[in-house]
């Protein structure tokens, strides 16, 4: 499944907001969860809701407004989310942080650059794999989606820092034994 054109266009808008936020605050927001997984697996599945961690809500709202995003509200009630009027099928939500309870190594973050200027910030493959396995551990029976996502991320990673991955999976409460590492060969 390739990314739809409008999905990439939305990511470019989001990168504008991320960069604006980073200029104002000195630190980038981080895109986490299913949307980050969808990006790093090149659209192996689609996730239309974007979970973002940013420590300064007001600065983030200003950055999003700069990129054309609107506040998601209903009947005058603020709902803590955003959407872009050109891409109404997607939504953005701020998640309380810090990312991974502060246990991830920020120097490992991934920053895909759009059109040579603006960038998003995504977790390292290891952190996202650990997060997915941790989510799998608490998912109800019959939902192995996060385990499959972790496996797909591993395949896309090409290589991982196994010691760091093991540590992070343990911290997130996941089971590294669920992964097939033969995809790295």
């Amino acid at each position, binding site marked *: *499944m*390739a*990314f739809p054109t409008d999905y990439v266009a939305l*990511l470019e808008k989001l990168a504008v907001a991320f960069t604006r936020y980073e200029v104002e605050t000195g630190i980038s927001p981080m895109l986490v969860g*299913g949307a980050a997984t969808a990006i*790093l*697996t*090149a*659209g*192996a*599945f*689609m*996730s*239309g*809701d974007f979970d973002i961690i940013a420590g300064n809500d007001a600065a983030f709202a200003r950055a999003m407004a700069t990129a054309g995003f609107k506040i*998601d509200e*209903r009947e005058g009630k603020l*709902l*803590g*989310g955003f*959407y872009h009027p050109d891409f*109404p*099928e*997607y*939504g953005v*939500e701020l998640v309380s942080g810090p990312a991974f309870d502060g246990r991830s190594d920020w120097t*490992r*973050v*991934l*920053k*895909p*650059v*759009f059109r*040579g200027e603006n*960038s*998003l910030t995504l977790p390292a493959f290891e952190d996202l794999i650990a997060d997915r396995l941790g*989510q799998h551990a*608490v*998912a*109800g029976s*019959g*939902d*192995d*989606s*996060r385990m*499959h*996502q972790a496996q*797909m991320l591993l*395949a*896309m990673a*090409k290589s991982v820092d196994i010691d760091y991955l093991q540590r992070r999976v343990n911290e997130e409460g996941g089971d590294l034994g669920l992964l097939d590492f033969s*995809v790295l060969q």
Partner: protein
Amino acid sequence: MRFDFYAFITEAEQRKRELGLSEDAATVEALRNKGGTRTPRKRAMLQRMDQRARKAGRKPIPAHF
């Protein structure tokens, strides 16, 4: 680590082909969150996204909520 998004996607697509990773409907569905552990807030958000898409005549992004 900074990298070009478009080059990354091209390389990732190539890697999927090399590994023979399926992208059929069943595989895509297996990767999709079944929604059992979603918060009420997240369910409401997904519902609003669905409604906005339909109102605009766009196809909603598939999601379980």
